[in-house]
């Protein structure tokens, strides 16, 4: 009898944790789920926009050519710094020149992105990378568009998702009782139907949501955790400064020879980006992937000397210790970019379940509250209004980001997020005081 009571108490406690974690963090989980489902397709969306909006493409060619384009860009922007050449993944796609200009005492840093036809070696267009839809999707999913503590909030959202997933599993049997999987109890009202869908989809996508929660929590809290525990990024390399920055900028680079040298030193590397130094280290850094390996994008690194093309540093994830492989697998597992379009579609479908779980859980909660309260708002109407407002805010921020500017959108997002946080804290304190002063309110 005693053990029965203890089991019941434990179950109640788990349900309470599931309920409160879901209720308070559901909104963040839903937003992250929705933006994550779209963020999975960032490269595809970006390519589509490049073709349809900017009308840029590369002439088919067996080799990549971009020396003349770099020379032209350097001529037009002599003060450019931090040049990164983005290489196309497939034939027909454009290469990109990504660099900064300005940053002096009175000048603001401006980021430039030029499209290069890698077949003809011509600059064919330009865009503001920060105001792109791809950047909006990434920033919204990674840091809720808030630069202050948005990334940490996303990490905490990951922890909340982990808590609701695990507690959901532990209370699953109590809520299923004699109901077989995947039967839905129809004809008992929307509350029961929503509760059944909640259980059905929750258990069906459980492992996926746990993986997304753990990797999301890590990716969100990574900068803080790495600072606290003094961890270093495994593929980080700081070359020695051997010449002046001015001399480094002027050093002529033969890109064809460099690509050939990189191929010789690291044959399996598929480079995504090449960075030329301008700090006096006289190096060229290749970042890339190894085909068929499920690791973070650009985890493999090769650093060559600009002058004699000799390798100074090589990081091959395949030969790294298990702990470092584990470090670099997190992002790939989170975004599902290791299994082609098929896996991305599966990630989107499974990823959207957590948004549905947040919404269905909220509907069930509103129906429960509806019974207790004298005021009767329609739970469906309330949920619809919440979902519409959140979707409109997301769309408005996307519009502001793309057509007015990243900084304005980031400022607006910071006001919305921090304002909502302040309102939530004030409301919680107010409710607590009201309950303390008027215990009858609890009944």
């Amino acid at each position, binding site marked *: 009898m005693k053990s029965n009571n203890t089991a019941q108490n434990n179950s109640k406690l788990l349900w309470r944790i599931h309920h409160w974690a879901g209720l308070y963090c559901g909104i963040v989980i839903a937003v992250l789920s929705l933006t994550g489902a779209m963020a999975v397709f960032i490269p595809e969306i970006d390519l589509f926009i490049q073709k349809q909006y900017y009308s840029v493409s590369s002439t088919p060619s067996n080799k990549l050519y971009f020396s003349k384009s770099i020379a032209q860009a350097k001529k037009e922007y002599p003060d450019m710094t931090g040049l990164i050449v983005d290489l196309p993944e497939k034939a027909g796609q454009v290469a990109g020149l990504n660099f900064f200009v300005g940053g002096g005492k009175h000048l603001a840093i401006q980021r430039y992105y030029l499209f290069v036809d890698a077949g003809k070696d011509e600059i064919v267009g330009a865009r503001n990378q920060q105001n792109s839809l791809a950047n909006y999707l990434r920033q919204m999913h990674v840091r809720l568009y808030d630069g202050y503590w948005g990334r940490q909030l996303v990490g905490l959202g990951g922890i909340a998702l982990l808590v609701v997933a695990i507690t959901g599993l532990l209370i699953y049997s109590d809520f299923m009782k004699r109901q077989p999987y995947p039967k839905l109890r129809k004809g008992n009202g929307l509350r029961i139907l929503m509760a059944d869908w909640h259980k059905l989809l929750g258990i*069906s996508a*459980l*492992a*996926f949501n746990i993986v997304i929660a753990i990797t999301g929590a890590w990716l969100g809290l990574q900068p803080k955790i790495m600072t606290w525990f003094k961890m270093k990024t495994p593929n980080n390399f700081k070359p020695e400064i051997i010449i002046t920055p001015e001399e480094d900028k002027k050093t002529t680079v033969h890109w064809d020879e460099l690509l050939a040298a990189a191929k010789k030193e690291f044959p399996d590397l598929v480079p995504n980006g090449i960075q030329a130094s301008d700090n006096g280290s006289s190096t060229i850094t290749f970042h890339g992937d190894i085909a068929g390996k499920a690791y973070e994008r650009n985890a493999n690194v090769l650093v060559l000397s600009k002058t004699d093309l000799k390798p100074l540093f090589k990081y091959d994830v395949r030969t790294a210790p298990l702990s470092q492989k584990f470090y670099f697998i997190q992002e790939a597992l989170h975004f*599902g970019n290791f299994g*082609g379009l*098929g*896996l991305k579609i*599966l990630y989107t479908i499974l990823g959207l379940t957590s948004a549905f779980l947040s919404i269905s859980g909220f509907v069930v909660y509103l129906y429960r509250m509806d019974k207790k309260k004298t005021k009767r708002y329609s739970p469906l109407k309330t949920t619809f209004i919440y979902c519409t407002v959140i979707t409109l805010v997301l769309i408005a921020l996307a519009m502001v980001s793309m057509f007015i500017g990243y900084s304005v959108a980031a400022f607006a997002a910071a006001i919305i997020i921090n304002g909502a946080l302040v309102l939530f804290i004030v409301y919680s304190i107010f409710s607590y005081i009201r309950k303390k002063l008027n215990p009858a309110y609890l009944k």
Partner: protein
Amino acid sequence: MKDFKLLEHNLIPCSLFVLNISVVHLIYLLFINNTQSLITLLAFSCTIFLIAGVVMKKKYLMIFPAITYMLLLFLAL
């Protein structure tokens, strides 16, 4: 009732958990064109048996493929 509980409250959640992982793994193996290897064959068989086990509610069709697949995964690591 005991069998129902074992099946519905333990084996099905467990099978669905393994199924999530095996489907993602299988898509990855097919994407990298690893169609001729034993690991792909085993992952494919386990996935099919797990789906059949959940649909048909056969406990041995869930237990054996789930254990085999998890062992395979740990050995592959």
